[in-house]
């Protein structure tokens, strides 16, 4: 049958066939190297657990609060608010503020996230709306440089009766306490 096909067309088909075969061999040749490079951006834990997808870097949990029978809020030190489904046992939604030296508090449907580098976030878990307040940390605008590595943490306290939020940052010391209306 192949003999009936004109020579140049036959050659073209053969070339295409060889290209396909070559691509398959190339894929199998490069796969281990690709896998090695992919693994190089994964954490040790993910590799040893045999995870295929790159997971989030592990962060300390700083807030856990059940908002109903189904969902639990889990706040982590990177400023992420995770909506953990208790029945499915997995995170179904995440809002990440990518903060540093984070503290979290909740009041009703609102989550307050304070951060040494970004100030204060007010997050409504129902609507998903966010309000950002830049806090005038002590010496922040006075010193030439604000050394992020000197920030020990932020501490936050809520006064639900007075509807006040008290906030301070550990920069050399916890010198100034800010009072913010919730």
């Amino acid at each position: 049958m192949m003999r009936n096909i004109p020579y140049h067309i036959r050659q073209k088909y053969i070339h295409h066939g060889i290209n396909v075969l070559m691509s398959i061999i190339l894929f199998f040749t490069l796969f281990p190297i690709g896998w090695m490079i992919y693994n190089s951006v994964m954490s040790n834990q993910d590799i040893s657990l045999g995870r295929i997808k790159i997971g989030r870097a592990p962060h300390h949990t700083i807030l856990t609060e059940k908002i109903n029978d189904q969902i639990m809020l889990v706040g982590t030190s990177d400023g992420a608010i995770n909506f953990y489904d208790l029945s499915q046992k997995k995170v179904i939604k995440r809002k990440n503020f990518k903060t540093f030296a984070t503290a979290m508090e909740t009041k009703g449907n609102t989550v307050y996230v304070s951060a040494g580098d970004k100030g204060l976030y007010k997050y409504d878990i129902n609507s998903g709306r966010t309000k950002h307040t830049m806090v005038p940390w002590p010496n922040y605008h006075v010193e030439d440089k604000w050394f992020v590595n000197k920030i020990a943490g932020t501490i936050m306290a809520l006064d639900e009766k007075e509807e006040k939020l008290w906030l301070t940052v550990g920069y050399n010391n916890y010198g100034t306490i800010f009072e913010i209306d919730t």
Partner: protein
Amino acid sequence: RGSIIAEAKKYKIAYAFIAPATIGMMLLHLSPLVQGIYMSFLKLNQFTLFAYLKAPFVGLGNYQKILFDPTSPMRIGLLDAARNTFFYTIIVTLGGMALGMIVAMMLNRQFKGRAIVRTLFIFPWIVPQFVVGLLWGFMWQQNNGIINVILYDWLKINHILQFFGIAVDAAKPFWLSGDPKTLFAIILPTIWRGWPFTMLMLLAGLQGISQDYYEAADIDGANGWQKFWLITFPLLKPVWAILMLFGLIFNVYSFNIVYMMFGSGAGYPGKWGDLMMVNIFRNAFQRYDFGTGAAVSVMLMTIMISIVMLWYRSYKNVESDRSS
């Protein structure tokens, strides 16, 4: 003999010039060899290591232990290692050459992106051997290794094989457990790492073959196989011969990949995972039996010298065929 002396006298200045380099090279190559052979006659272990070359002389005792003493710890597993090394060497050498030939012929065409594809194919060869061992060691893991994940979790290969009537265990196989699968698991990474070199050599050889031969064969109505078997294959014989020698030597003395794949030599690779060099290393440097380790090394070296001599004899035939 007279002519040799006469020639030496005639070119004495030339011989004087090359003498320092020759003596240096001989010392460099021969002194470790002679020392290794001498060590094979000594009872050199952790108790006598302080005496080093003055350790008790046991003559052929180490060789006798290896060859005839079934209770000798050095002998246990040695035959397995020898069998594995034999199959490993043959399969890796021939497999690498076959794959290298196929890809070299594919690359010896005109197509878009040829330079990039040629470069990409060489990538495995630039990965260091110990990295290859570590990488494939992870890839062969039973539950979390990517090979089992692809075969069993994604492709469901056990279901596919069962569909074709092949009974397969539903559990993922443990490739590095020391059963016959392990030999395959160490052969594949070695072929993967080594074949680009073979391909490169064959590609260079292919580019040296004149297209006139193929055009003449086309006119004579030869098909693809005939062109390969009657033109390409014979004209590449010198390259085949060199690759065969390189492959045999490299693969018989293969060590890094297996050593790294089984936890940096921490464990015994099993009945089907052990190779001669890994076995010698384990016995000599982890069991501190340097004398017997040296004896096995000398035996292996003797076998390899015989193989190289046989190879050289056949290579001379290849050369004479080529010149005639």
